[in-house]
Every structure is written in C-alpha cells, then in structure tokens.
C-alpha cells in the first residue's frame, strides 16, 4: 500500500478536532436554579447508553475525518482481486505524434501521419470521463498541440485533426522528455506516454537517437518514468520501399559575387531496393523562378547520383536556390533549398607585415590575385594597410563608400606580431562571423603569436608556431602539397596533381612548422609532403580562421605565385572564409534567425513568412532582429518594409529519407534504456494493461464509499439521538 500524495496525510492531525469539540461543548453550559430535581434523574442504564452513544458519535466523526484525509492522499493497493472489481482509474495521457517527414509517406492515398491521427482519435474514443490528454507533435523541436493535460477530449480531438503536415526531422527523446515534464504535475497514478510513429529506425534507434535516449534515461529516475507505449501506425509498411530523395545542397560559397558562377552540389539518392528508375529531371529555381532543369546521369555507386551545377546570380542581395524532383510517395525529401548571399563586391582588409611600399611587397601578390588593376569590376574590394596602421576600428568601418562594405575577411600577411588590442579586435571580428587568413613568413615571431593568440589552444590562432623549417636554397628538398589531403570544401577544387596546379607543381622550400593537435581545435586542411600542415583551420565564434604555414607571396623562393592556381587559391580561400557568415542563413533546426541589414537600413517592421502557417509581422526597434521560432524545416522569407528580402533555410534531416524500419534489436535497445517501453498496436493493447493484477489500484473511491456510508450512519445516529431528545 502507498499514497500518491503522502504529504496530505499530515491532515490526520485533524483527528483531534472531534474530541476537542466534544470537550469544549462539555465546558459550555447554562445554569438553572431548579426545584424539580427529582425528575432530572435518569437511570444508570440510560446514562451508560448516552455515554456510549456520545463516544460512538465522536469515534464516528473521527473516522470520517480519517477516511477523508486518507482518501485525499490517494492511497493505492496491489491486490489482484481488487484490481478486478475496481473501476478503471483515471489516467493522464500524453499523445506524441511523430511529425517527421517520413510520416508523410503515402500509400493508397493515406499517409502514416493520417494513420497516426486516426489511431489517436480512436484511442480518445476509448477513454473515460475524467481522463486527461495532452498532444505533442514531435519534430526536431516538439510542438505542443495542446499545451497542457486537459479532460476536454474534444479539444484534443480538434488538435489532432488540425495537426500540421509532417516536416523535417524528429528528436523523439526531446518530445518524450517534454511529455514526462507534463505528467510530472499529474496527481494520477496511471500516466501514459503514447508515441505514434511509423516504426522508422532513423529517429528512434539510430546511433544519435540512442545517445539521446541514454541521456534521457540517465537524467530521469526510473520511478518518474511513465508507461511509454510505442505504436507503429503502419505495421504493414514494407521494409523495402523505394524512395528517391535529394540530399541537402552544399556549396563552398554561401557568399558570392554578382555575376560570378557558384558551384552547388547535391545527390539524388535511392533508398530501398536497387534497380529503381531515377527521376527524369531535377528542376532548379532561383527565388521561386525556374532556372533550368538538369537531367541526372545514371545510377552511381550505392544508389547515389551526384549532381553538380553552377548558377550565376546577377543581382546583389539574398537569393534562394531550390532544387526539386517530381513528387513521389514521400514528398518531404523531394526538394532542397539553399540561401545564398550575393554581394556586388566582397570587402577584404589586408594587413601587410611588410612596411615597404614598393611593388614587391607581399600584399601586392594577393591584391593582384583578388582585384587586378585591369579588372574594372573586380569581385573583391580591397584595402591594404600596414600592421602599424591596423587599428581595431578598421574591422568595423566600410572599406568603400557604401555602408555594406565592412570587411568580411581579414588577411594578416606575414606580420611579425599582432598586438593584444589588435588580437582582441580580431577575436571580436571572428565572434561576429568574420573570416581571417593568417599567413606566416620570415617576419613572423613565434613567441608573440603563441603566447598572445594561440594560448595553448584557447586562443583564436589554429596552431602553435614551432619554427621555420627547410632551406630556401635547396629547392630539390622543398616540400610539396599532398593533393589527396585537400578534402576541405575550400580546397577540394585543387584535389589533383596536374602540372601547374597547386597539388601538382607548387613547392615550398621553407615554411613554418605548425603544431596542430586535435585538442587545440585546429584542423589541418592541407598537408605538405614533409608531413607538416600547409593550412590549418579553426572555427572561432561564428567565424573561421585559416593559418597558412607560408606567406602566400613569393617569399622563401616558392613558386606558388607563378602558378595559375594561385589566383584560384586566393579566391577560394577568401570566399570560403567569407562564407563563415553564410551559416547564418542556412540554419540547423532551432537555430535562431539573426537579421541585421548590412546597408544601414533603419529599424522598422519586418515580415517573416515561415514554411507553414501565416506570415508574422514583427516590429523591430533595434537591430539585430532575433527570431527563434525556427522549429519547422524549410524556407523562411524575411521582408523589411523597404522591400529588402532575406532568405533563411532551415535544413531538413536527410536521414528521414531512409525508411528502414526498426528491427527487434533496435526496439529492444530502446526498451533496455527506458524500462517502461512497450511496443503495442491498438488502443486496447494500452488500455488492457491497466487490468494487470500487479497494477496498483487506487482505492480513494473505496474510501469515498466508506465516507458516504459513515456519513449516512452519522446523520442517522445524530437524528436518532436528536429524536431521542
């Protein structure tokens, strides 16, 4: 036996009330001077009878108080015979509808999501009055359809019927955690969480999901875990369903220059049995307008068809690139979006460690590569300053006349040392999403770099400077680029060893030896043949830093600046670094939108059109605008009152395209973590479990019956005594 609300047993203190009232009543009496004393005598038997009646009445009232308190404390028993006769206890139920796009898989005109809604509606029909229900829509961030437990089942029915279409991925453990929190406030003994899903392995028992379950299990005491019923609403779905999907779009350039080609990559992927006919065409749209079709080549390895295409954007501003294939049984993965920021020119600030102003200083090579003097409309807007001239405010001031020419990329070219105030400015620049390229040459002083900016991996510098290695006079021993190491999105263009290329011909007789251990956060993205890194990258704040072991000019007798790839390398590195801020427009689910116009537009009303639902108008008093309701995957279109449009794309979970169902082992692995997990099919499977003899039976109703009986007895007895009077 136990109590659901044992604290209320303190109310048993009220048992003293009837005796106290009884005693107090005995102390309060009238006094009458009386003559006919002889008639006041009652027999000893009557006196005893009255005494017994008073005692019985007092005990009866104490019993009433005791039963009432015990009933309020909600006692329960584990008695099999009682479980058979007891009325079904009221329960609190949280229904979780899987809202991932795999639930949109449609067969015979009905999706798994529709089946889940039907199941939930059927389950509600089986509930009894007093049962309370809450409904959650599980996505990457769960959405409450009814935000609280309510006995209004009609409200739950309405919420289920109005549930939005499945979209994006799912974080089921987060939804279950939310359900547990909802049920924590429940005073009922019977609490159930019912997950209505399509039995897909991804999102339930894939490694990442299992990690999440483990996290949930470790943070939840076993006693706090309600029954977790898992229902596969499409048990008949074949495990080998063919499904073509488009992978998320990738591009090295989330920031592009007007009129320049930008390369995009994606994949057509076949899930399910091989031998399926691929879609005939892949449509491309820019800002919702058709921009051509691509015919996929034949099926490549493992059902994947890589697609690469280029696109030019002729106007500056935010653009939305969309690719799509014809809708199939699962429409959620037949479209991918990518937001691109197109700029008239990309502002770059170059700080040169060479104080000479001659034509041969290091920065001039980079200037010639990025903005040649003969190019009337260069893609980059450069400003070159010496290290002495480099002040922190240069990173916040426009380089050109327009307000939107604040530097996106900072290049520190072979500077001897970076002062602390300069280092702090660079940190802030990176924190805001800027890109920094640091090149090392003969002037660089390791001590200052390491102590001030590497700080044993805690600083923004990706690697520790050791020493310059190699002899610039021994060209035959010069290190070369290991082209196979060029895996990074910034450098994969150079992943070849053709003559004249970076991988095929560049040599570096002398370079800095960089210590880039994994724990420091630096990742080598290009290796030299002497096993030292050429480039080391590190993410810092919202920005990126690339540290180059060579000065990226003609110093130390390298042939890099003589190669045709030098210009491309300079472009790719700068675009790559500038695109660090591109992550701000291609978002993960739940990552907030942060909007700050780069052209100095004054704060004012902003309209946001989410993927589903009506547009929202937000009054902005101060930039930046932060909008964190990015639960749904898809395109968010932001429009200012001046007509400026900014696209944001919340990327979907590509794993949802894989409809592989859970096998027994998958199911068991989750059940092992969450002990109360049971896999069922019908509402009756859930409801019949309550009849388990081992189930706790709430007996407050029994006490209530006793209270009513005692109350009736007390009234009868009081009336009888009063009648006797």
């Amino acid at each position: 036996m136990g109590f659901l609300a044992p604290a209320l047993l303190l109310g048993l203190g009220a048992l003293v009330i009837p005796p106290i009232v009884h005693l107090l009543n005995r102390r309060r009496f009238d006094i009458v001077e009386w003559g006919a004393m002889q008639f006041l005598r009652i027999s000893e038997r009557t006196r005893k009878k009255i005494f017994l009646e008073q005692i019985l009445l007092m005990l009866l009232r104490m019993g009433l108080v005791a039963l009432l308190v015990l009933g309020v404390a909600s006692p329960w028993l584990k008695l099999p015979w009682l479980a058979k006769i007891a009325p079904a206890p009221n329960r609190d139920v949280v229904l979780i509808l899987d809202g991932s796009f795999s639930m949109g898989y449609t067969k015979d005109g009905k999706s798994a999501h529709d089946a889940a809604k039907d199941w939930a509606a059927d389950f509600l029909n089986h509930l009894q009055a007093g049962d309370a229900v809450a409904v959650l829509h599980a996505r990457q961030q769960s959405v409450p359809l009814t935000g609280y437990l309510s006995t209004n089942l009609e409200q739950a029915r309405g919420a289920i019927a109005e549930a939005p279409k499945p979209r994006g991925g799912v974080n089921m453990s987060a939804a279950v955690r939310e359900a547990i929190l909802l049920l924590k406030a429940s005073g009922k003994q019977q609490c159930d969480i019912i997950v209505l899903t399509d039995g897909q392995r991804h999102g339930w028992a894939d490694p990442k999901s299992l990690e999440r379950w483990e996290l949930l299990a470790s943070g939840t005491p076993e006693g706090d875990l309600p029954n977790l019923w898992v229902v596969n609403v499409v048990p008949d779905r074949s495990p080998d369903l063919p499904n073509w999907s488009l992978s998320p779009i990738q591009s090295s350039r989330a920031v592009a220059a007007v009129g320049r080609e930008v390369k995009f990559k994606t994949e057509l992927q076949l899930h399910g049995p091989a031998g399926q006919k691929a879609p005939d065409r892949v449509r491309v749209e820019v800002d919702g307008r058709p921009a051509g079709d691509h015919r996929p080549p034949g099926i490549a390895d493992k059902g994947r068809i890589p697609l690469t295409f280029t696109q030019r954007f002729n106007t500056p501003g935010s653009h939305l690139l969309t690719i799509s294939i014809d809708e199939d049984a699962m429409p959620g993965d037949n479209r991918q979006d990518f937001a691109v920021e197109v700029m008239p020119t990309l502002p770059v600030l170059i700080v040169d460690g060479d104080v000479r102003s001659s034509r041969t200083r290091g920065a001039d090579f980079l200037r010639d590569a990025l903005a040649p003097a003969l190019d009337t409309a260069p893609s980059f807007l450069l400003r070159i300053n010496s290290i002495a001239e480099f002040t922190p405010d240069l990173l916040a001031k426009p380089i050109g006349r327009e307000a939107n020419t604040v530097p996106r990329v900072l290049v520190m070219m072979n500077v001897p040392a970076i002062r602390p105030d300069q280092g702090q400015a660079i940190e802030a620049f990176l924190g805001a999403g800027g890109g920094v390229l640091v090149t090392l040459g003969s002037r660089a002083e390791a001590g200052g770099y390491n102590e001030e900016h590497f700080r044993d991996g805690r600083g923004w510098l990706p690697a520790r400077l050791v020493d310059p290695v190699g002899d610039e006079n021994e060209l035959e021993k010069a290190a070369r680029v290991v082209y196979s190491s060029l895996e990074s999105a910034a450098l994969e263009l150079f992943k070849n060893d053709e003559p004249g290329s970076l991988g095929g011909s560049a040599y570096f007789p002398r370079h800095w030896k960089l210590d880039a251990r994994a724990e420091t956060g630096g990742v080598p993205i290009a290796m030299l043949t002497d096993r030292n890194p050429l480039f080391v990258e590190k993410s810092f704040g919202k920005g990126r830093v690339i540290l180059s072991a060579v000065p990226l000019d003609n110093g130390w007798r390298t042939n890099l600046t003589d190669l045709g790839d030098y210009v491309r390398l300079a472009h790719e590195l700068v675009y790559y670094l500038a695109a660090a801020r591109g992550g701000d427009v291609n978002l993960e689910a739940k990552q907030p939108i942060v909007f700050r116009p780069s052209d100095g537009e004054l704060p004012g009303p902003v309209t946001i059109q989410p993927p589903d639902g009506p547009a929202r108008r937000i009054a902005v008093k101060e930039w930046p605008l932060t909008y964190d309701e990015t639960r749904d995957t898809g395109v968010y279109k932001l429009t200012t009152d001046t007509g400026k449009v900014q696209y944001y794309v919340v990327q979907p979970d590509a794993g949802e395209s894989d409809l592989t169902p859970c096998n027994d082992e998958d199911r068991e692995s989750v059940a092992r973590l969450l002990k109360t997990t049971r896999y069922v099919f019908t509402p009756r499977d859930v409801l019949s479990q309550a009849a388990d003899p081992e189930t706790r039976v709430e007996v407050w109703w029994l006490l209530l019956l006793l209270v009513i009986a005692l109350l009736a007895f007390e009234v009868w007895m009081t009336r009888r005594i009063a009648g006797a009077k």
Partner: protein
Amino acid sequence: MTRFDPTELRKYGGLTLIARQIVEGFLTGVHRSPYKGFSVEFAEHRQYTPGDEIRHIDWRAVGKTDRYYVKEYEEETNLKAYLLVDASGSMAFRGSSKSPSKFEYAQHVAASLAYLMLHQMDAVGLITLDTKLRSLIPARANPKHLLRVLTTLEKTQPGGETAMAPLWHELAGHHMKRRGMIIILSDFFDHLDDLIRALQHLRHRNHEVVLLHVLAPEELEFPYKRLTQFRSLESTDHKVLVDTRRLREDYVRNFETFRRELKDRAAKLRVDYHLMRTDAPVDRALGIYLSRRQRA
C-alpha cells in the same frame, strides 16, 4: 370579566392591596352572584333533602306549611378554612425573570383567598411550612385577622427542603381537629406515598382538602435546549449537568406521571386537585374556592 395579571400587580406592592384588588375585581366580574349575602346573620329554611339530620327539621314550619324544612343555624354556616402554603426552597423557582416565583404566586393566591374568605365571613387560618412548621395562624373570622395573615405571608421566604407529609400528619392530629377546609398551595415535590398517606389522615378528620398544585410552565414543559447545569434550590450541593434535549422526553413523562398520579390518588380520596400555572391568573383559585365552598 376582568382578569388580574399577578405580574402586573406585583409592582403595586403589598399583599393587602394585591389581594383586595384581585378579590374585588373578581367579585365585580361575578354578576348576580349566587353567593351574595350567603354568610350573613339571617338564618333560613331550606327544603329537607334525604340525608339531612332529622333533628334539624323545623317542625313548626312543617305544621304551617305541611312541608319539611330544615332550619340552618348561623354558626354552622361559618366555614373554617386553612391555607397551607409550602415555603420550601423549590417554591422559589422562577421560570423567567418576568414571571413570579412559585412562592410569590402562592402568596398572591393565599392572600386573595384569605381576603375573600374573610369577606365571606369565613374563618381563615394560615400555615407555612417546609420541613418544619414555619408559622401557624389559627382560623379566625375577624376582618382584622386578615392583616396578620397577610403580614405573615409577606414575611415568609422560601427555603429548606420539602418534607410536608409528616407535618400534615401533625397538623391533622393536633392543630386541625375540627372539620374544615384545607387549601394546600405547594409544588408537592415530595414522596407521593407519604403525601397520599397524609392526605388520608386529613380526610380522616373530615377535612375538605383542595390541592392547588403551583407549577411554573418551565417545570411542565421543560423547554431547555442546551447543555444545562441544574442547581437544587433546596440543597446547594446538589447539581446535575444535563443534556436537556436528551432528557426532555423522560422528564416530561416522569413529571406528568407524578402529577397525574397525585391527581388520581387525590381524587380517590375525594380531594380536589387543581393545577395552578404561574403564568395563569390568580383569581382562578377564588372560583375554585367558592365552588368548593358552595358544595361544603
């Protein structure tokens, strides 16, 4: 008929005044009173009825009228009446503050009767008693006797326990040998058997006995609702805490049984019994007396 409310009369003070007002009011209300001139010196003849003593037949009247007349003597028509007033503690009970106590009520009744009796030229005596004889005023027909009776009544305060039966025996045996009327004003809270035996004794002496059972309404109806401690008026140590609502039925039944038994057993002794509620007018007692007087 004008009735007198004893509670109103109290404020005028003095039993003499009260008694006078009661009686005169009563007599004024009784028009064409059959008792007027009843006890004057004129002796009259009345027709003989079986049972009259033959020696009282007026033979001369028989000779003249050829009818049998009995000659009534003046001295035989004077009635000797005794008022026995119970002055025990229980008579001090006063139901509500507006009501007279039973003893006060009995005083008024006794005073009124005395006034009326003397007005009728009957001899009246007064005896007050509780466990012992408090006062004994022999019966006299002298109008001046009234003052003595009323003064004694006024001075008497109720107290002591009720034990009247032995005293009645004593009275019957020593003080009231001559036949007369005895009007007893009491609550009779005594042992019933003893009372009846004493009444038998009085009846044995050929006294006409009238019991005026003086009771407060509260004693009859027991209207109490709350837990109450009853403190004896006769013994300070005697207290009883009573759940009045529980007790009421028993009390009323017991009390009524006692009263009815007293009445029935008195009736068997040809003793009149009259309930005198303290909330009822006092002059009712006068009617009772005159009725009884007529029969006597």
